[in-house]
């Protein structure tokens, strides 16, 4: 709060940057400088070609010493770019680094008023005057350090989560890998092959799955969901719900005294189970029992009882015998862990393409989605890798692939964005058809083929050479012949300028991808924002693609936006590296932008508690009174509480009410303050 240095008369230095012609091209620097010198308390005002350069910084450092400055203003670009630079210079010059204020005369001025030199110059004067007004009231502030727990959490064990967990663990960090499904592997484990190399997806994925299972630093927790998150970077207290799966691991069995017992994955229980349900791993095209594993390569190899459908007949328990692995009365368990940082890798799901009713998914038997196609063509899938028409089990000879199905769709029904990997997997599908049904013909209905990655365009040429037919046009509708169940794909070939109507045996819709239902839930727990379409927001789209605006929380994979496997893995490695830094450093410095409660004024009404988006405020008893208390490490200094407090009891450091009022006055009153 108000300190003694405030009594000292302000001596402010102002430095105006040309930024080459970025600023000087639209703003009269000389005029701005002359004006600045007329502002009260400004003892030095200088201009320079590039203030952020080494000579520019030296200039600032020397001026602080020479003029014994109490505050510094730099009129240049956005503080998001060079605020750290000038803070460092302030510190080097012997001044507290928080006595620095930046006036943005580039992004918010010269770039947007390129053709109005006079207006831009006047606006720059306003910005500098306002910055000086705040600089007069700046105070010494001191960042705080908090220790960081030597552990990390990765939420979601698809390929992105697996990679992030392996990297974190291999750098010596205890890593909790949380997966809501009974097995890890995610979407990638459902795929048959990967483009453009045509590797078998499971073959390249399972070694990593096994590594995760065996890694001494990874604690794998499947069939587990995040229940609640408290704390802040360095000290997240996470409560996990381990859902009751009704089956004991060998360790759990031993703990109960059944030495040598527990599930060994023998599978004897499965045939005796009388309950049949669709298997979501097979896109509901194959059955599973109430006690099940998704597929033979699951990690961990542990059966799971779906208690929503189990009738508790006890047949599994009987056949399991001495292993005593079955516990039909098992309850959900809550586990608390403490971690320093977290990586969210919660993946995606397919857009419900039946909403595009003109294509008839779920109405016509022979219209399927791309993930259903993956399972049909996969050797371990429900048909043993034989592609069939769902209506009659026949081998299709003419197959239509509808690309951009629900992507790049501005009708308000689908998604406006490009889902980024559908072009490539549809090319792969066309190749797989060529491999498995040599006399079949593939038709790809596309808008543009986006083959942007390494060796992708070459793959596109290869598929063209293999004989796939490419028809450029959005599919207007698909009609079914009720007798044969064949499909008529109706579109316009926009290259020929002709309507086309092609009869095919099977249609595969390359459905758009969207965030899962859980994405929103998980992001709220961790305080991560999302874009309008639900994908999680990175801290900066170019320069901080793995971080989030919540310190200590990072993103990997498709939950941040559609991406293929190489990109998902690359981002996962980036997120793991970023998440490991605070842990390896061992402590984090927090910006001192937190709120402070003036306990004398605080009436303990508690209205601020619910408003706080970061759960940083609590009501506590102090000397017989209820007052608000701030957990400084959690507070982001957003000012919501400070702006609202009916008693004016909350002081926002670095954005205090007097500082903001002074800026507003400086703007509204012009030079007449």
């Amino acid at each position, binding site marked *: 709060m108000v300190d003694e240095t405030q009594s000292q008369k302000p001596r402010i230095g102002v430095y105006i940057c040309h930024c080459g012609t970025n600023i000087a091209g639209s703003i009269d620097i000389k005029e701005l400088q002359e004006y600045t010198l007329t502002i009260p308390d400004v003892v030095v005002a200088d201009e320079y070609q590039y203030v952020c350069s080494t000579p520019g910084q030296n200039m600032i450092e020397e001026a602080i010493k020479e003029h014994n400055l109490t505050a510094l203003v730099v009129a240049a670009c956005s503080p998001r770019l060079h605020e750290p630079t000038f803070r460092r210079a302030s510190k080097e010059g012997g001044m507290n680094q928080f006595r620095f204020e930046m006036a943005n005369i580039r992004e918010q001025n010269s770039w947007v008023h390129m053709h109005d030199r006079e207006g831009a110059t006047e606006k720059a004067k306003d910005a500098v005057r306002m910055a000086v007004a705040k600089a007069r009231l700046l105070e010494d502030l001191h960042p705080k350090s908090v220790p960081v727990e030597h552990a990390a959490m990765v939420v979601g064990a698809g390929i992105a989560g697996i990679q992030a967990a392996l990297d974190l663990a291999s750098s010596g960090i205890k890593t909790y890998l949380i997966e809501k499904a009974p097995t890890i592997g995610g979407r990638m484990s459902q795929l048959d092959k990967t483009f453009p190399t045509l590797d078998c997806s499971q073959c390249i994925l399972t070694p990593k799955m096994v590594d995760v299972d065996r890694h001494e630093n990874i604690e794998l927790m499947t069939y587990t969901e995040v229940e609640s998150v408290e704390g802040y970077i360095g000290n997240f207290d996470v409560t996990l719900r381990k859902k009751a799966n009704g089956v004991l691991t060998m360790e759990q069995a031993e703990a109960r005294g059944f030495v040598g017992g527990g599930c060994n994955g023998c599978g004897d229980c499965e045939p005796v189970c009388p309950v049949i349900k669709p298997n979501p791993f097979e896109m509901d095209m194959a059955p599973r029992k109430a006690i099940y594993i998704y597929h033979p390569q699951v990690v961990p190899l542990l059966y799971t009882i779906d208690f929503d459908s189990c009738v508790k007949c006890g047949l599994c328990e009987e056949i399991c015998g001495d292993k005593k692995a079955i516990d039909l009365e098992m309850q959900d368990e809550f586990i608390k862990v403490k971690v320093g940082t977290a990586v969210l890798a919660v993946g995606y799901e397919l857009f419900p393409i039946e909403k595009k*009713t003109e294509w*008839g998914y779920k109405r016509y038997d022979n219209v399927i989605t791309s993930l259903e196609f993956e399972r049909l063509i996969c050797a371990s899938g429900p048909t043993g890798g034989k592609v069939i028409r769902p209506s009659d089990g026949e081998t299709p000879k003419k197959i239509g692939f509808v690309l951009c199905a629900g992507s790049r769709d501005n*009708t308000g029904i689908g998604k406006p964005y490009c889902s980024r990997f559908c072009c490539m997997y549809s090319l792969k599908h066309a190749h797989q058809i060529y491999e498995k049904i040599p006399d079949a013909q593939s038709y790809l209905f596309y808008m543009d083929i986006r083959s942007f990655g390494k060796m992708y365009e070459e793959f596109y040429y290869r598929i063209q050479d293999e004989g796939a037919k490419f028809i450029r046009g959005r599919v207007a*509708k698909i009609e079914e*012949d*009720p*007798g044969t169940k064949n499909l*008529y794909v109706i579109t316009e070939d926009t290259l020929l300028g002709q309507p086309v109507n092609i009869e095919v045996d099977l249609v595969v819709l390359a459905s758009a991808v969207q965030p899962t239902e859980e994405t929103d839930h998980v992001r709220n727990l961790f305080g991560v924002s999302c874009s309008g379409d639900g994908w999680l927001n990175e801290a900066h789209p170019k320069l901080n693609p793995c971080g989030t605006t919540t310190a200590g929380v990072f993103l990997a994979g498709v939950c941040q936006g559609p991406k293929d496997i190489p990109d998902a893995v690359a981002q996962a490695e980036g997120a793991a590296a970023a998440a490991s830094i605070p842990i390896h450093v061992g402590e984090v410095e927090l910006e001192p932008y937190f709120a402070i409660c003036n306990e004398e004024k605080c009436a303990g009404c508690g209205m601020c508690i619910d408003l706080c988006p970061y759960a940083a405020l609590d009501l506590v008893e102090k000397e017989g009174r209820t007052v608000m208390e701030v957990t400084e490490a959690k507070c982001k200094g957003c000012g919501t509480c400070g702006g609202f407090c009916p008693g004016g009891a909350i002081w926002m450091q670095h954005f205090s009410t007097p500082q903001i009022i002074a800026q507003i006055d400086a703007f509204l009153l012009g030079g007449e303050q």
Partner: protein
Amino acid sequence: MSGKTHQYAFFLGCIAPNRYPGIEAAAIKTSKNLGIELLPLKGASCCPAPGAFGSIDLSVWMSMAARNLVLAEQMNMDIALICNGCYKSIWEVNHKLKHHDELRDRVNEVLKEIDMEFKGTIDVRHLAEIIYDENICGVAKLADSVTTPLTGVKIAIHYGCHLLKPRKEREFDAEGVGETENPMWMEELIAALGAEPVQYRQKMQCCGAGGGVRGYDIAHALDITNEKLINMSEVGADAITEVCPFCQLQFDRGQIEIGEKFGVKWAIPVLHFNELLGLAQGMSPQDLALDLHGISCEPFLNKLQ
């Protein structure tokens, strides 16, 4: 269900009274048995035809439609109509003028010359949609009104374009009549009359007439109609039904024209939904003026059990 009678201003359109007067008669008579009273909209003009007028002069199209709307506003009653073309004009102009101040001002400028003003106080609905509405009639009440069920016949339903599309502008999704790519609510209505609705290829394809196609290029229009007839006959339809006299004209007269122009012989009877409802409620073929149809309805009538 209460015995309350729902009153509507009945917009006849042109084709029904002039070409198929049985539709008009059936609409008025059958509605009475469903708790719906259709009152004459005196002084109404052509809707006007959306293709012929709308594609040439929007101002004329909107002003004429608005005049018809004002007549109903003066009666303080919602409009009921029996033709998809009329629906396109009257419903859509009502919707546009209610939501766009600038268009409404433009139209009111024209209406001022005849001392009228569009106020936007009423709604416009198709009679078939009203009959399907549970709050007014509903499928069960419709079935209860049937005295001579139409058993033993297969009926191909043609919804017609203007009733359901463009999807973005229509409010059918909101009103529970369902989706526009594969609607099934008319199937429910037909089944309530005792007949068997059949599914066929390209159910939602145009009849060929609308949008000025029949007037502009009759051969092209008939080509589309012929394709629909092929698809309907493939599944053994004994009759075609629709809720639009212009579609009816295209299917009915069209079969004769296809014979003349392409040499393909067709003889599938075409009956408006209200005509079928009339038969099911015991009206005679004479009352329904079925003898005015181009394609004889006799084989259909004979097949009824």
